[in-house]
């Protein structure tokens, strides 16, 4: 079905509205999107095209640090997947710190060497976690 209609764009202060109106005056479609505005002083209205990069993104900074830190620590702890699927093989090419620690400490009976690997994992985790701890312990 083909209908002749007029598309109206209203570029407003707090939102942009678009409607399509037929020649009979019926509104057939409408769409509305709000805009972020700031009022720096009475009578002034400002809209920032880069609000996302300068406001939204920086305010997510702490969330990014927390999520990133946890992801790094978790990936240094990987064990079950490698152990059950490849056993670190073929050869040693899929060996990770977690499984290498286990094989040395509990299969090859080199407990000292295994403990040393474990401490390397721990030190890496702790260094990565410093910003995380600082954010989390803030009141």
């Amino acid at each position, binding site marked *: 079905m083909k209908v002749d209609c007029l*598309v109206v764009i209203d570029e407003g202060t707090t939102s942009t509205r678009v409607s399509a109106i037929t020649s009979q005056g019926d509104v057939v*479609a409408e769409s509305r999107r709000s805009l972020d505005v700031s009022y720096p002083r009475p009578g002034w209205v400002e809209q920032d095209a880069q609000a996302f990069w300068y406001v939204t993104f920086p305010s997510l900074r702490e969330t990014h640090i927390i999520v990133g830190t946890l992801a790094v620590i978790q990936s*240094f702890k990987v064990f*079950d997947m490698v152990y059950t699927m490849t056993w670190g093989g073929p050869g040693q090419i899929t060996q990770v710190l977690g499984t290498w620690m286990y094989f040395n400490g509990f299969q090859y009976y080199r407990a000292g060497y295994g403990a040393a690997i474990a401490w390397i994992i*721990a030190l890496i985790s702790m260094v990565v976690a410093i910003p995380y701890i600082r954010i989390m312990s803030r009141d």
Partner: protein
Amino acid sequence: MSTTSVPIAPKRRIKGVGLFLILFLMALVFLIPFGIVAFTSVKSQGELIMGGVLALPKQFRWSNFVRAWEIGKFGIYFKNSGLLLLIKVPLGIFLAALAAYPLAKMKFRFNNAIFILFLLGLTIPVHVILIPMVIMVKNLGLTNTLWSLIFPYVAIGLPFQIFVMRGFFRLIPDELLEAARIDGASELWIFLRIMLPLSLPALATLYIIDAVATWNELLVALVLVNADAARTVPLGLLRFQGQFASNYTQMMAGVLIVIAPMIALYIFLQQYLIAGLSAGAVKE
């Protein structure tokens, strides 16, 4: 003059369709392995080889599950892991809540220092404490009992649980506690009758997270346990995998048996995961 009956925001619509497609593809990536497990578990060995892993099963062989359960001795492993879910998980969460209450609601010296100490526990990988733990468990005479798992599991879980409980307790308005104190309630009474009931959503969330983690935990159990009496489900599955290295239909039936309780638990507890029970308890 525009001549169209198309809805106004085609750009937005295209964006919506694109987003849907991307999310749909991602969902597929996550669901396909699960689908392979589910389909394979009800096929016969011949059907699997003929049709490949992705073909829909033509006839359902439920006997795979019965055989897997019997041969894999899953009865023992389910009993052990089930006991952990009933004893270890609630015990750990209760201890964490006990520690979190003063950290969140009382002022005392070194409050923050103690909290940071617990936070540090989050960053220490379990690998570091494996060897000392084995020696300790051996010296305590707990080797190959379920207690050898309960104590370390509780300790390992505490930092994260204290962290979450403290965060939740801080959201509970102080006015509620003050009102209870004026009525002469003891701190323990406040903790048991006000804090815990109000944090039901947090407790349920922690129960799910910790239950799944405990059910899946492999490394600690692998190191501490080597007798059937205390083997948990992941260890049982590992043994089962060894026995059925090439019998994939049987193996996938075993895998499905093992993951089913966690899916059921998640669906059952999901209704409690509604945060903000205490919102509106006090007029600001």
